[in-house]
């Protein structure tokens, strides 16, 4: 309440703080701290939004929450606690997702400044777009361990959150996961897939069985076995009764259901399941002898050698020792107990048409993954990890401490003071670090304000990208889900063929469902096609130029290239044996410098000084960059969006809106007698109006 006491703050700042309206997005580690700083500084008009509820593991840093609040809404409890610090403040709490449709541009426009304290990239992208649209300054912040970051995003002045490419989630080729794991993470990913196979929602590309079509295997051992296995048949040999029932072994879903069914038919017998996954399947892999010419072959383990007397019902002591690296025998015990619990839970869910979803905080689910990952690691002679370590990797847990959050949130609110006073030049990005740099700084401001990237596919005037995609293998549904939503961060995209009226994809329910299952080329989306993509809620329009290529097996099916140069076949670089530590170090630095981190420092800045850990809270697979050539999604370090030749003139909705408003304005001022109709037209133009030719309206009014 500093602003409530005369003389504490300089006069102008005091007035600005008193009258400003502020939005805090996220009531987590940084959000709690930001909210406290705001109410104590004397901000009166605050809204806070968070969809999350309070978890015990939040309490080491989210200090507005206590034990008795576990399970309650973060936004609401944060509001209550902050009000106790300053009962004069007015705080509105929204227990909701900031991407929900009611928080449109007009909602964002209400605020003088927005402080975002989010933990995931999708929401950050969205808030970035909304603030750009609403032209409201955004102070973006993030932390990861000892590292923190605060930066201003202001339309036209600074780079936006999406001006610099963020590193992709690390993914692994299917055959590494299924056939030739070499790191603990490969086994952890496999174990999570196994969980989903048995109990979860079936997801494409999550086969756990040996993959006989692995090009490394250079031909399957026997044609008969290979046919069965190629389709992802988990059984791997002909003895299994389920195999005969497999009508369509080339369709993963059929097989998955059968694996699940088979486990159910075995009554989830721990020994039978264990032997199938860790003995029979491994023996099948061994038959693919080409795989093991340059690799150490796996060693199958069988249930009877590990658990001669079967398991007991009691949870053994070691199962709770999360920091201990379990022996393979102990893993077998944990596997059996977890399986029992999960099977019971699954059957209950199944009766209601539901499945289980893997959660790192669900004890049997986590036990199951830890045990299975370790047994597989044992088999492949990979270092085993403690349950605690596996949880970090499987759950993508980002370490978080109170102090970094406090520092980061403090800087965030100090920057808000600058923003309110329009001291833009004083809003340079600031990084918090564990160790001081050469100048002795560990809270390090950038040397200058980073300007917008003119080629940004979000904040550029007329954004466009080139999409390299296999139009003969990608369906419309995948274009929507994987490209437009997951990669280009749209929420509810509409897609038109440029220059025609053809609607390929509509965000309206059921309008274009029939296109979902069609391949792009069947819809005439071929090399050279230009798609006009809109997200109405984000007020975002993007042109996508299609560049077709025939993807090899295990190649990514699409890639956002944008830079035309990348379309040229790349010459193989002469391979150098790099051994000097320096080179590698520099490389590491560069890698780190492009790591966009969820829950972590929010943007990838060219000057991010030191030691950012990789992190990402979306699903799985991060940890570190992979050099494998056959990664599913190629890291797009080089994604700098190039403007593309414009072959068609297009009209952005926003332009239309502006023009429309201009016209109404002119009418208002020049034709004052036109009482009734003009007043009507003065009201804000609804989006749907945009479809009407503006000229028509002018005529009507006249």
């Amino acid at each position: 309440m500093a602003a409530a006491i005369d003389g504490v703050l300089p006069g102008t700042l005091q007035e600005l703080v008193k009258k400003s309206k502020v939005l805090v997005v996220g009531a987590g580690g940084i959000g709690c701290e930001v909210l406290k700083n705001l109410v104590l500084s004397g901000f009166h008009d605050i809204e806070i939004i968070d969809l999350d509820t309070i978890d015990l593991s939040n309490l080491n840093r989210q200090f507005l929450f206590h034990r008795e609040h576990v399970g309650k809404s973060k936004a609401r409890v944060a509001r209550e606690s902050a009000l106790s610090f300053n009962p004069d403040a007015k705080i509105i709490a929204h227990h909701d997702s900031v991407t929900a449709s009611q928080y449109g541009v007009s909602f964002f426009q209400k605020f003088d400044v927005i402080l975002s304290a989010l933990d995931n990239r999708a929401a950050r992208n969205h808030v970035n777009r909304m603030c750009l649209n609403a032209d409201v300054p955004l102070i973006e912040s993030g932390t990861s361990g000892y590292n923190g970051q605060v930066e201003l995003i202001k339309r036209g002045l600074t780079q936006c959150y999406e001006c610099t490419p963020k590193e992709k989630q690390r993914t692994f080729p299917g055959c590494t996961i299924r056939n030739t794991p070499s790191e603990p993470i490969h086994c952890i990913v496999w174990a999570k897939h196994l969980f989903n196979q048995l109990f979860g929602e079936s997801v494409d590309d999550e086969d756990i069985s040996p993959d006989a079509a692995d090009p490394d295997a250079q031909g399957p051992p026997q044609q008969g076995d290979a046919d069965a296995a190629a389709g992802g048949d988990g059984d791997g040999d002909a003895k299994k009764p389920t195999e005969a029932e497999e009508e369509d072994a080339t369709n993963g879903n059929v097989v998955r259901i059968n694996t699940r069914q088979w486990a159910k038919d075995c009554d989830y017998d721990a020994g039978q399941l264990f032997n199938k996954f860790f003995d029979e399947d491994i023996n099948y892999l061994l038959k693919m002898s080409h795989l093991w010419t340059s690799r150490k072959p796996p060693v199958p383990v069988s249930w009877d050698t590990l658990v001669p007397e079967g398991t007991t019902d009691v949870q053994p002591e070691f199962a709770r020792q999360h920091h201990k690296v379990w022996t393979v025998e102990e893993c077998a015990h944990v596997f059996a107990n977890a399986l029992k619990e999960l099977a019971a839970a699954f059957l209950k869910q199944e009766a209601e048409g539901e499945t289980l979803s893997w959660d790192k905080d669900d004890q049997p689910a986590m036990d199951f993954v830890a045990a299975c990952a370790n047994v597989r690691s044992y088999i492949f002679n990979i270092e085993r990890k403690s349950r605690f370590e596996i949880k970090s990797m499987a759950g993508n847990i980002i370490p978080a401490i109170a102090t970094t959050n406090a520092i980061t949130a403090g800087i965030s609110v100090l920057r808000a003071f600058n923003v309110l006073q329009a001291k833009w030049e004083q809003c340079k990005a600031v990084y918090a670090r564990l160790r001081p740099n050469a100048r002795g700084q560990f809270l390090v401001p950038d040397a200058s304000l980073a300007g917008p990237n003119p080629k940004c596919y979000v904040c550029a005037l007329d954004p466009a990208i080139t999409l390299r995609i296999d139009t003969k293998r990608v369906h419309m549904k995948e274009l929507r889900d994987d490209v437009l939503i997951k990669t280009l961060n749209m929420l509810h995209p509409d897609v038109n063929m440029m220059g025609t009226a053809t609607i390929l994809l509509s965000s309206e329910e059921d309008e274009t469902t029939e296109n979902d299952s069609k391949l792009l080329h069947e819809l005439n989306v071929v090399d050279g096609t230009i798609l006009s993509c809109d997200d109405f809620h984000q007020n975002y329009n993007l042109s996508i130029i299609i560049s077709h290529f025939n993807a090899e097996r295990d190649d990514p099916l699409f890639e956002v290239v944008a830079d035309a140069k990348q379309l040229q076949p790349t010459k193989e670089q002469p391979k150098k044996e790099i051994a000097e530590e320096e080179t590698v170090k520099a490389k590491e630095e560069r890698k780190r410098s492009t790591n966009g981190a969820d829950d972590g420092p929010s943007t990838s800045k060219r000057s991010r000084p030191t030691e950012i850990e990789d992190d990402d809270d979306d699903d799985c697979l991060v940890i570190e960059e992979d050099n494998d050539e056959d990664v599913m999604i190629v890291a797009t370090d080089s994604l700098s969006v190039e403007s593309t030749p414009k072959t068609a003139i297009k009209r952005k909705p926003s332009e239309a809106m502006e023009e429309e408003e201009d016209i109404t304005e002119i009418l208002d001022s020049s034709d004052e007698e036109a009482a009734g109709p003009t007043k009507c037209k003065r009201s804000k133009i609804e989006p749907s109006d945009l479809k009407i030719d503006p000229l028509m309206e002018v005529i009507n009014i006249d």
Partner: protein
Amino acid sequence: MGVEVDNKETAVELTEAETELYDRQIRLWGLESQKRLRTAKILISGLNGLGAEVTKNIILSGVNSVTLHDIQVVTEEDFCSQFLAARESLGKNRAKASLERARALNPMVDISADTQPLEEKTAEFFATFDVVLIIGQSNNELLRIDAICQELGVKFFAGDVWGMFGFYFASLQRHSYVEDVVKFKEVEAKPNQKAKFEKYAVPVQREVNYPAYSAWIDFDANAAGYQRQLKKDGPGVILLGVLQKFRTAHKRDPSYKSREADIGLLKAIRAELAPKSALSDNSLEVLFSQISPAVAVVGGVVAQEIIKVVTRMEAPHRNLFIFDPDTCAGYVQVIGG
């Protein structure tokens, strides 16, 4: 027998609760550090906004005990940043007024209040702590306590925030710690593949000597050899000198109640101490009371340093920290030794 088994189980439960509560930080600094924190006894003297921020962070980290020491009462200006004292506690002792909310932050930490004047505290008192943080005291008192702590081997911090400007000084005597040094090794590459490198950390034991608080008193910011550094870092060190001089001369800090007059007094001290310094008039405008976001920054930094000292992980900064609210730069200066 039965009772014994029950007790054992409760003990295990408790440990699980702890590891669950501290999960996200154990993943950063490890189990060993968390165990060290569990035994640490901390004194925080001066429960203004800065004291409250450090208290919060330290309690959340899971130390053994925190003693809140203060003889002052809660005033209106405390509500600019001292969130541990409730509105109703106006006029009550600040340490006592902070107890309830401090305890709610983490029931596993033992928290007590002490209201005896600091001048009466002797070695016997300071010996009961691992780390001592003194806020809002005169240089003379800081010198006295630091000397006692030197003798006892108790780690000593002095820190303050004026408005948005803040500092701390660390007097850690001989301090040993473990630091991870990152190295790279080549990983066995598959045929036809690029050589891969793997990062790995090697823990290295290090030891460093910290000079006493007197090093700061003896420090001459006008010394010719220091001017280049001063130009690079900005006038934070000069400002700290001006503010401490104000405190010594007027037996108080600049007050919002006499804002304009006190800015005048500060300018007079500036003219006397550092006539040609780059210390601007603007930076004298934001030195009143304690402004919450700035206190959060300095309180976060001080608490992190206390955690480093207790866990003996990572090098504590050496040894004078300055927070410049104008740029939001936070930097360290080596003073003495």
